[in-house]
């Protein structure tokens, strides 16, 4: 991951360098250099002025320097206070000239001091870079610049933007630029009424949280009655659409929470639901999956950094094998002696869970481990007023895929048939030549393996620590029992119901009370339907 990042930075830098050298001459090099070294030796508080000075030159040559500054890659030598852009290299840091980007020597990091920036300076840099790159050759850079200006609403950038929008050919970029212009227009006291009304209309149509913020902060500054009226109308309309999206958002959050619950519970639906083993070590199987992901990522980071994006794909089968293997060992070593005594399995598996937790603690240490999100698992995109985060979406998809595959395995494969036969009538199945012990072992391994795969997914949103399993075990049992033991569909519906119920309660009751209410709901629900949502009927299902 780190290497990849470095690579990206390097590519970006060289690209920007190319942009810079073609864009402008190198006339004012000396004054630029002076400003840069003044910036480096200034106090944190005063650095802002120097950044503004750099931006005011309008010289795109400073862009790579500013970018590096924001990224924390600018250092100066302790000895002579000369300023460099740096990048990591063998044996220390590779020095680069801040303007020409010529490579210099590699020095140890102790002889350098970092030119620190804070959020405020980073914001400044972002605005400055945006102003300088609003007419860049690269559409992506222009888009970024326009978005940055939309956020910073820098009045001085208005003429630049207007020039840019006239020359713009790319529709997306043009849109963003117009949006930025509209935002700045609302701030601009010199703008005409017509311009402002147009901007208000634009935000009314945009209808999101940011638009609401812009319009409501504009309202007190409205100069004419028409403006205030338009603003008030826009606020009303935006609030209405936001309320609608709010409900949609709650459903989405609920489904997303439900998918997490489903993933956590689905392995248990096999080991507990189908086999009747009260598997208190289920959470630890999830944990093993998460740690497998960690190990896979470590190996990839160390040896094959290019494959990081695929780390989860490698981790999935491995997690299945690791957790499944441990499950198999558990079944063969312990659980098979306890069939027909489900409450005893509770004790034994609780013991196993303690051992597994401590084993992981001994091997990996007690602290959280870093499991990175590949790029395709990061970030968010918007559908209307709904922001979908990539990791949640993938987890939902993954949970459903696991569910469907598992259902297929149970319904369509020979193994599934044997499994169902054994759970329904062990003796009959045995007399028909099914090796029931082997089926038990494989079933348990399957359930454990699936829990392991769930661990891979959960590692993307939560802590990877020895306590990981404990976080999910109770919720998992609630889901399986609520849905109805022995019924996969029940687990699906149960998980989703609990997820959505929780998320609809949360805004009103708060997170803690919402969870309590859901638990109370489960307790009362079990009174009504003592066998869960999807109770199996008939004589053979007594667990």
């Amino acid at each position: 991951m780190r290497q990849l990042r470095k690579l990206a930075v390097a590519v970006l830098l060289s690209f920007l360098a190319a942009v810079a050298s073609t864009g402008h001459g190198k006339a004012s090099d000396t004054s630029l250099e002076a400003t840069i070294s003044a910036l480096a030796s200034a106090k944190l508080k005063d650095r802002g002025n120097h950044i503004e000075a750099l931006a005011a030159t309008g010289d795109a040559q400073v862009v790579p320097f500013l970018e590096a500054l924001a990224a924390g890659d600018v250092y100066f030598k302790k000895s002579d206070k000369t300023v460099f852009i740096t990048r990591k290299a063998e044996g220390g840091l590779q020095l680069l000239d801040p303007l020409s980007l010529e490579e210099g020597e590699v020095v140890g990091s102790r002889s350098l001091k970092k030119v620190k920036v804070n959020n405020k300076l980073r914001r400044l840099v972002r605005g400055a870079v945006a102003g300088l790159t609003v007419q860049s050759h690269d559409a992506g850079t222009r888009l970024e610049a326009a978005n940055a200006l939309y956020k910073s609403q820098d009045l001085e950038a208005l003429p630049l933007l207007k020039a840019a929008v006239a020359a713009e050919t790319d529709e997306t970029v043009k849109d963003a630029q117009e949006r930025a212009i509209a935002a700045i227009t609302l701030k601009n006291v010199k703008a005409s009424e017509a311009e402002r009304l147009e901007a208000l209309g634009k935000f009314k149509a945009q209808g999101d949280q940011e638009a609401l913020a812009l319009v409501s902060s504009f309202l007190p500054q409205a100069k004419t009655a028409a403006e205030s009226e338009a603003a008030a109308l826009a606020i009303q309309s935006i609030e209405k659409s936001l309320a609608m999206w709010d409900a949609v958002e709650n459903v989405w959050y609920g489904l997303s929470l439900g998918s997490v619950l489903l993933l956590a519970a689905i392995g248990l639906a096999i080991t507990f639901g189908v086999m009747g083993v009260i598997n208190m070590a289920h959470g630890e199987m999830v944990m093993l999956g998460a740690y497998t992901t960690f190990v896979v990522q470590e190996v990839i980071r160390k040896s094959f950094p290019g494959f990081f994006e695929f780390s989860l794909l490698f981790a999935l089968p491995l997690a299945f094998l690791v957790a499944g293997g441990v499950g198999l060992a558990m079944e063969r070593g312990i659980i098979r002696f306890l069939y027909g005594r489900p409450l005893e399995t509770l004790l034994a598996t609780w013991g196993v869970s303690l051992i597994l937790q401590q084993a992981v603690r001994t091997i990996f240490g007690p602290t959280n481990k870093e499991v990175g999100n590949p790029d395709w698992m990061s970030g968010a995109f918007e559908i209307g007023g709904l922001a979908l985060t990539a990791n949640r979406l993938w987890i939902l998809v993954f949970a459903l895929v696991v569910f469907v595959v598992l259902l297929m395995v149970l319904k369509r494969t020979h193994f599934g048939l044997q499994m169902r036969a054994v759970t329904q009538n062990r003796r009959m199945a045995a007399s028909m030549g099914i090796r029931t012990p082997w089926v038990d072992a494989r079933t348990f391994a399957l359930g454990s393996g699936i829990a392991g795969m769930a661990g891979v997914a959960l590692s993307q949103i939560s802590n990877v620590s020895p306590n990981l399993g404990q976080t999910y075990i109770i919720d998992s049992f609630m889901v399986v029992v609520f849905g109805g033991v022995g019924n996969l569909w029940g687990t699906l519906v149960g998980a989703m119901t609990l997820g959505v119920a929780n998320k609809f309660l949360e805004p009103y009751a708060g997170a803690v009370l919402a969870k309590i209410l859901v638990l109370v709901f489960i307790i009362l629900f079990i009174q009504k339907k003592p066998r869960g949502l999807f109770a199996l009927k008939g004589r053979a299902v007594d667990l």
Partner: protein
Amino acid sequence: MISRYLFQALDKRAFWVAVALMVFAVLVPLLNLVVPDGHPLHVPDYLVGLLGKYLCYAMLALALDLVWGYCGILSLGHGAFFALGGYAMGMYLMRQIGDRGVYANPVLPDFMVFLNWEKLPWFWYGFDQFWFAMVMVVVVPAVLAFVLGWLAFRSRVTGVYLSIITQAMTYALLLAFFRNDMGFGGNNGLTDFKDILGFSLQSSGTRAVLFALSALALAGTLVLCSLIVRSKLGKVMIAVRDAESRTRFLGYRVEHVKLFAFVLSAMIAGLAGALYVPQVGIINPGEFAPANSIDVVIWTAVGGRGTLIGPIIGAFLVSGGKSYFTAAFPDLWLFALGGLFVIVTLFMPKGVIGLLGQLKGLASKMPRKNADKPLPAKPEAAE
């Protein structure tokens, strides 16, 4: 006279253990207070506190055994009753502090003062009276057990479903008591107690008395449970455990029997909690943690469920083991504890008590009628 009557009505083992506990109740405080420090027979304060704690655990295990071992109700939420009893006692002890709190507020406990509570919440009223607190110690758990049991047993929720809803109950209470808005001190719980009925909790004497009370309470509970188990009701309970619907067809109200056992057990657990709190000096929501309730199940299973002294032995062995191992092998003790549970379930399905039976059977080469027979199928598990 009475003892002879009891001797007949009780399980003999239970009788002797109860007698031993009573001796214990006198002996340990004596060895602690009278025998001088340094004497080989001196029992240090540390050990008095530790054993007192175990006695409360043993009571809790006994309470669980009454419902699990004899009535087939595996409660994974017994810690909740224990904690509620503890909170009732804690609230009394809190009110006892009076104006000796750091903010010297005569009514409000410290944690309410610095979080700007204006006045005492209504449910804290009355807890300045010892008798009221003592009534609440058993009434609150009993009411909770009654409501939950009445709902669950009437709807015939059994087996794992029942276990899971008891777990849900204690988990919900855990979350609720964590909330500061509940007015029970949130995560920190109730602590910093000064004295009970005017006796300082920090004096050896008070602690010795608390120890003696715990031992007597355990002995009393043991006698009570033994009387119940040996009565016809006890037989009905076992009948319910082994064949619930058959019992129903005999005309017994299974839900009433279960409810009785459950409520009584909750009351015993509450009492155990109330004795526990002044001895450890703190009650906090951690006691509601589902893992704690599972611990209780484990004590009972290790000692041998369905016997009255099994849970007592189990509670002492497992918590004693925990005390020892956490000091002797701080990095490895979970392996030992986890291994113990696996071994007990695999090789000692009837717990330590059962193992003793098996050993005895082997030693005399004359198996008792049931000693080497496989355990009767466990119908309660099959529901």
